[in-house]
């Protein structure tokens, strides 16, 4: 016979008080983060209202007239709507397909390095490009892929007939964008995986070795499952920004030749919304993107829960 003893939970206030006395430091450290999110992520949510208004700065959000879905309609009616969505998704998916796994592979490789000094040097050198500003990075890219640049020289040396800047070629834009991203961000992106790798219990490796697992088998059966949750978490978050290719690097690299593959939603919004001061239009497109991104996160999370058993909610 089993008896279930129901433990009455203490009131929330009491529990919080106890928790706070135990982990006061952690709570304190969390306050700036909380303030940041409230101020910069929750408070502005109200401002998304301007997507449905003809926002005029001096009239304020409430004083500006309601226009319903006018700005959404205007975006959907744009001559380039289909192309913008297509380009945005292409660049995002290419990043997801290539840049995302490379950071994991790179972290695994670094993790295998035994010499600590060498390991640290590789890490430092690899995340240095992350700190170079986008403007400078794009200037460097333009010089590298120029008809006299070293990349074109290498490609020509191995038999390609190019004779011009790679930025003249619409088909080269996505590779340039993604590869330069890999160069700039892989070192930085792998830090979080390295942290996850550091958290794997060494005894698991020991047990695997006793069972006769070689390095490859250890990676497959200990390391990868050990960082799977981190990978899934980052993958879901990445899927949640599929519609959000930033405009800075795009507008610094594209030109009239490559518009057909390079012009994305954010660069279009930059030209129309920011340069023309049409904030309501920008807000409408932003809201549209967020709605799609949100849906993607929910779907990705559901799939992940089903397949791997873990998700973010």
């Amino acid at each position: 016979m089993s008896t279930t003893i129901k433990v009455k939970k203490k009131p929330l206030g009491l529990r919080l008080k106890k928790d706070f006395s135990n982990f006061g430091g952690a709570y304190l450290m969390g306050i700036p983060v909380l303030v940041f999110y409230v101020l910069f992520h929750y408070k502005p949510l109200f401002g998304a209202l301007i997507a449905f208004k003809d926002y005029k700065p001096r009239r304020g959000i409430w004083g500006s007239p309601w226009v319903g879905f006018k700005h959404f309609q205007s975006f959907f009616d744009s001559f380039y709507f289909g192309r913008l969505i297509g380009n945005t998704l292409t660049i995002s998916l290419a990043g997801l397909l290539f840049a995302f796994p490379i950071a994991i592979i790179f972290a695994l490789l670094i993790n295998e390095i035994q010499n600590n000094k060498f390991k640290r040097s590789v890490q430092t050198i690899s995340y240095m490009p992350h700190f170079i500003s986008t403007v400078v990075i794009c200037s460097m890219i333009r010089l590298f892929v120029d008809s006299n640049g070293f990349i074109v020289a290498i490609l020509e040396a191995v038999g390609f007939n190019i004779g011009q800047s790679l930025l003249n070629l619409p088909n080269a834009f996505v590779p340039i964008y993604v590869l330069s991203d890999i160069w700039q961000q892989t070192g930085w992106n792998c830090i979080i995986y390295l942290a996850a790798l550091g958290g794997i219990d060494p005894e698991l490796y020991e047990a695997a070795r006793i069972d006769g697992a070689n390095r490859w088998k250890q990676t497959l059966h200990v390391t990868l499952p050990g960082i799977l949750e981190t990978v899934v978490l980052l993958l879901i978050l990445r899927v949640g920004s599929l519609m959000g290719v930033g405009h800075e690097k795009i507008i610094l690299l594209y030109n009239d030749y490559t518009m057909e593959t390079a012009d994305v939603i954010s660069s279009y919004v930059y030209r129309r919304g920011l340069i023309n001061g049409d904030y309501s239009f920008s807000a409408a497109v932003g809201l549209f993107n967020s709605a799609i991104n949100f849906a993607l996160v929910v779907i990705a999370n559901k799939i992940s829960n089903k397949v791997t058993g873990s998700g973010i909610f």
Partner: protein
Amino acid sequence: MKKLMSLVLAILVLALPVASFAVEYPVNSDKTITIWKLLDGSIAEGGYTTSMDTPGFKAWTEAAGIKVELQEFNDNDALRLAISAASTLPDVIQADKNLFTGGIMTMVADDLVIEITPEMLEANAPDYWAFVNNDTYMKEIVQLDGNMYGLAGHVFEPGSVFRYWRGFFYRGDLLAKVGKEVPTTAEEFYDVLVAFKNAGIKTPLVFQGSGDLAESMKNGDVTSPFGLVNAAEYHIDGVFHYGAYEAEYKEVLRFWKKLFTEGLISVDYMSMEGSVAQASICNGDAGAFYGNNSRLNTFKGALKEGEFFVPGPGLKTADGQNAMFSFADPMVSSSDFAFITPDCENPELVLNLYNFLFTEQGKLIRDFGVEGESYVIGDDGIPAYTELVTNNPNGYSLDGTARSWALINWPGIHGDYQLAARHPEKTQVAAYELWGSSQADTYRIVPGNTILEEYADEYATLWTDISLYINESRAKFINGELDLDADWDNYIQTLNKMGMERVYEMKQATVDAYNAAAGK
């Protein structure tokens, strides 16, 4: 006796405005004026990061006796965002009159600016008012509702060639080497570039920046031989045209395609770093350059002995007339209008401040800076920059020091008298004169880049897509991806589909409204 009385009275009436409406400087006000404006990045070349610290700014505000608090923004986006988010506006927004789509009237509708009446100007900015109160300037300052909003920024003296600061330069020594003169027609232009190429010059023609082939077409430097005024907005007898939609544009594109195909312009012109283009014109990899006059200040240090530049005009029409168009600022430049906001408590003081730049004392500070330091007055009574500006001991550029010690980037009058001082190279003065010989004022739409407020939204929506399509198509026609004969009709039809005819209607209505307001 009666006659004498009326004569005395008339003299009194005439003398009255002058006598009663002069502002005494220094004003010595204890109030502080706040101004938001764009940061002029060039002051960094003079060793400063904010205008507040520059000697020119200090000299101005001290001599005017008015305290000023400046906030400078890196670009128009940042300035617009700050204005949009402000609960209290500064006293003055000093900005381009087209900061917001729809121009000044959008600012009026959004309650960002107050009206300035002739009475206010007479009383508080008499020197400014005396200069601009005539047809030449008023048609660009007065808005469609008949009112004035904001003080004009950069105004040009009548007949000044200072407005024409962009065009072609050739390496004179290389022209001599290939036995050619400065080209003035399309054939000569082509021949010179071919001769450069044959002489081993890698890229005969380069552009200042990657967007400048398009700019040169918009400025009409090579369109006149083909019967086209320019590739952008112009009018013929009050009728609006957009060059890239006109039949003659096709032949202009054909000409550029020929230059591109034969390697007379860089294959990378669309993505070339400005610094690469500029290095090539100095090291002899290029023979001709399209860009700003002030670039010569930068280039001259890189030239070897015997190497020199000569300016070239926009190409002539088929019947030998001067180019129909060229780059030129309007008589009242669109930039640096001083808009007094509704939150300003002392509009009179703001008017006093800017008026100072139009007084004799203010003009000297504005153009030359601080006497004895950045300029001296010669025996001939003409002010001239000292070596601090022309040959700065810290290696700062002439442009950078002139913008820091003087106020040449602030509102005021631009006249030919500044040309020699600002441009020690005779070539540069010659360039202004040559470029100023175009017929641009016959075809220019005044005020340009404007749209009636009622069309602002519709125009912005249509034009974002149309301008992109025109830009992409131009690039593809030039590199041969689109065929000028097979794809031209489709190009025009697509523009029609995108609403180009509607753009013409809206623009024509705008031109008509301005002409009606100006009493044309």
